[in-house]
């Protein structure tokens, strides 16, 4: 109970402190530059000054937080990649040399590429199929809701769920893992799925596909509904069959949305770390960049230089998507 009470107090203080800043700073601004009374010239001047300052009061915390938590660290990571373990002695390109001669890096890079190819493709594909089909049946919304559900589950929770499915029992014991039970049922030999080289990566990817398909489905389903009926009616009149309508009329019209879904999942895949950590702890050839970075950050006291260099690789992979996003957003702003 004591913990609950202190947690409540900390929570309230934290939230109140934040609210107090906005109220307090605006109150002060109005006090220092009063605009409600006084000489007309004075009021006009105050109003102008206050209007110049107020945006920065509103933006202040956000800009500070973004700078401290995202902007400055990106710059500092680049700097640290040229420094040694503790981040104090300059080592030039040593970290980069180490990276490109390290087998573990090639392993995690290869795995990351596999993840990048398989997960966004599979999730978008299943999402599109499910979105198309659920739009046609009366219980489609229930079906969508259930397929969307894994989105709410943490990667660690999902890892437990799937580790249970991949569970392996030795000897003649009954298999309590669903996958091995199925294999045995169809007359096969049970396997320790998570230790089979290369393939174990795919067993981990299944988890993320399971989680992300719902996301793809929701977005694509909305896009499909946005397709003008006339285009489809015209195709039907011209005698197109279901598959032709799907591939030649519907898919091309939502191409932009498919790209958005694809890139969103791609970014997520690059950052995936919890699943590998929880499922295999990067054993049996399942290492990925994000997890490798995490382990260099902490293991054996931590090596900040090497950790930073791996983080940089992830960043470089993200940059094309970032540029594309900014250009898209700019084009949209001009259109407004």
């Amino acid at each position, binding site marked *: 109970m004591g913990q609950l009470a202190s947690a409540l107090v900390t929570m309230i203080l934290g939230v109140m402190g934040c609210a107090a800043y906005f109220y307090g700073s605006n109150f002060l601004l109005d006090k220092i530059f009063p605009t409600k009374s006084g000489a007309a010239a004075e009021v006009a001047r105050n109003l102008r000054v206050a209007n110049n300052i107020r945006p920065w009061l509103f933006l202040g915390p*956000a800009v500070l937080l973004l700078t401290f*938590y995202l902007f400055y660290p990106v710059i500092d990571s680049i700097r640290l990649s040229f420094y040694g373990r503790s981040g104090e002695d300059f080592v030039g390109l040593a970290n980069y040399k180490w990276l490109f001669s390290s087998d573990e890096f090639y392993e995690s890079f290869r795995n990351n590429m596999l993840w990048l190819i398989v997960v966004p493709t599979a999730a978008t594909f299943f999402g599109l199929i499910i979105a198309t*089909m659920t739009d*046609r049946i009366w219980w489609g919304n229930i079906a969508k809701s259930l397929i969307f559900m894994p989105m709410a589950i*943490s990667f*660690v929770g999902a890892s*437990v769920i799937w580790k249970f499915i991949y569970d392996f029992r030795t000897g003649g014991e009954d298999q309590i893992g669903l996958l091995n039970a199925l294999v045995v049922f169809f007359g096969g030999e049970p396997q320790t799925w998570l230790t089979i080289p290369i393939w174990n990566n795919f067993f981990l990817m299944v988890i993320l596909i399971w989680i992300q398909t719902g996301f793809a489905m929701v977005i694509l389903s909305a896009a499909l509904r946005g397709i003008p009926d006339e285009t489809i009616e015209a195709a039907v009149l011209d005698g197109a069959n279901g598959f032709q309508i799907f591939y030649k009329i519907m898919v091309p019209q939502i191409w932009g949305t498919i790209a958005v879904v694809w890139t969103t999942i791609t970014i997520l895949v690059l*950052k995936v770390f919890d699943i590998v950590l929880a499922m295999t702890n990067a054993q049996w050839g399942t290492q990925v960049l994000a997890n490798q970075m995490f382990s260099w*950050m902490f293991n054996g006291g931590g090596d900040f230089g090497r950790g930073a260099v791996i983080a940089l690789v*992830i960043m470089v992979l993200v940059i094309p998507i970032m540029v594309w996003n900014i250009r898209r957003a700019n084009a949209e702003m001009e259109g407004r």
Partner: protein
Amino acid sequence: MITSSKRTPLTYLVHATVLFLVIIWTIPTAGLFISSIRDKNQLSTSGWWTALATSEQRLVARAHEPKKQVQEGNRFVIRGNLFEGSAGEITKFGSSSLRPDEFEVGTVAELNKGETLQVMENGDYAFSSPVEWKGSRGDRIFYTAEIPPRFTLENYREVLSAEGLGKSFINSLTVTIPATIIPILVAAFAAYALAWMRFPGRALLVAAVVGLLVVPLQMSLIPLLKSYNMIGEFFGVGSKTYVGIWLAHTGFGLPLAIYLLRNYIVGLPREIIESARVDGASDFDIFRKIVLPLSFPALASFAIFQFLWVWNDLLIAMVFLGNDADHMVLTGQLRELLGSRGGNWEILTASAFITIIIPLCVFFGLQRYLVRGLLAGSVK
């Protein structure tokens, strides 16, 4: 749409395929939940899909200690029941671990030195000996029994108390609630400024926010860890505090929050805001009295996102809150259990269900807002 009201074979195929996919997508979670309420002996010996079937189990129990013996005629007898209240049906029994199913139920088994053991179907047993029983512990009885399905909340009771999940639950709440509210406040003000106030550098800031949307967390971790250690040393308070993790989640959540909210707020009708300005309302009043209430749907969408993201986060909690038992959040605790109690599925399944129950409630309760937020964040 191309919906056809006719019941064509294709329609049936669609129904069947969707049903199949829904089953595949829900079975993993269903299996977890069913397993978490099963008796732990049954859970470890049979698949969860047999939860409703009677299972045959090989078990072992200890008879009562010799001081409970009674003299019947010229023999000394120890009586008891193997099930001690729960249900079951014994088929075979034995007195040594080498031959646990030596005797059929009901038979009087002749052991050495004239001792006998009889076990009945309902679990009643009787050890009998011509001389007085000695020692402080009862003998072991091995038996094979048909145990009916047994469901229990025992697993939950155990993980909540003994495994420290109750505490982690509160820790998770302590992290999540402020880490959801603070970014909303900060982002809403910023989004309003970016949408409706004129100042130099606005376009650049918007572009920066869009750019920061995709910056991988990994880039921030090491520099921030260093900064946190420095700040902690300066104030003499350890680097791992709740305030630290709230601000970290706020910082990482802000780009999406500002982006979502700005997109929404910029779409509010210009006339409302202009006329309020003409009436002499300051930007602060306009924001508080007009924009904030009107933006409720967008605020709710982001709140759900942020809540799910913070509650489900493992990385930031591990880095900025640490792994000591006092501060462990649910995801961290669950990972720890996955390492230390890898084979104890009764513990893992119950723990996992506790960690996912809150997000699932939020998800099913507020799905509408979640979907709206997703659409605003991606399609635009």
